[in-house]
């Protein structure tokens, strides 16, 4: 189930800078937080007048992620054999949780921390702690 990965500081830093630049472009041009869960969630709720930039953001994200992966297919090999019920449960939790808490790794994480928002700092500490605890326990119990 688990696959070894190595510490890749250079590509992690480069990718991180690109994600940060994406947030800066969004802030400078639209004046908004580039939070994936918020942009996606707003598309479902469809407030009038905002669907075009929400959709444009998602299309840009999908296109370059595919193109980048095509250019560097070694970046990752799709996982196989992950239990479908767990995948669905995780998806429900991520959707419900980010909607209830108003943000995810991008909105509370990257954008919130760089705005020095206390609310976001609390959210990040909680979801990091929950993520670490869950992943560590699951691996110890089931997949070691």
């Amino acid at each position, binding site marked *: 189930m688990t696959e070894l990965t190595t510490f890749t*500081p250079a590509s992690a830093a480069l990718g991180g800078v690109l994600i940060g630049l994406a947030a*800066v472009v969004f*802030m400078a041009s639209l004046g908004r937080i580039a939070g994936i869960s918020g942009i996606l969630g707003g598309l479902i709720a469809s407030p009038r007048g905002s669907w075009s930039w929400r959709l444009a*953001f998602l299309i840009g994200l999908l296109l370059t992620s595919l193109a980048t992966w095509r250019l560097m297919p070694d970046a990752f090999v799709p996982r196989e054999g992950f239990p479908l019920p767990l*995948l669905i449960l995780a998806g429900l939790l991520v*959707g419900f949780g980010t909607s209830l808490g108003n943000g*995810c790794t991008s909105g509370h*994480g990257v954008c919130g921390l760089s705005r020095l928002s206390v609310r976001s700092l609390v959210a990040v500490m909680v979801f990091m702690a929950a993520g670490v605890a869950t992943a560590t326990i*699951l691996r110890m119990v089931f997949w070691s």
Partner: protein
Amino acid sequence: MSTAQAMTKPGAFPFGQTIAALLSGALFGAGLVISGMSNPHKVLNFLALDAQWDPSLLVVMGAATLTALIGFRLAWRRQTPLFDEQFHLPTRRDIDRPLVLGALLFGLGWGIAGYCPGPALTATLIAPAEGLWFVASMLIGMMAQRFLARNKAAA
């Protein structure tokens, strides 16, 4: 968020907003794949504290946050964003139950499968066998929360 959205004048800067959002999304998507954040193995090897611990995602978050920390301050030197009449920044400061409970549930789901919303979206194309199931479930989760919140507000 709802008040900020209500104040948006629809279609005031449609072309500039759309192009800028496309560019931002494009940078985001490339960043997610290059950084390794799109790879659930790498995410779980960061979240699971064991002998295989891979600290790469700490570098991703650090680099992204530092870039935004500097870039936001440059962006805020203007009175308004390029393609809107005002900045739409969150104004709430209270630490309430929904914030903490939401983050907790999100962290649980993240720790189970290794996908947060951005990498889940990229997975719909580069790992569709997982990505489509995950994103469909995530959208249902989002809609369920909104439905419950609306009912609660109406009651």
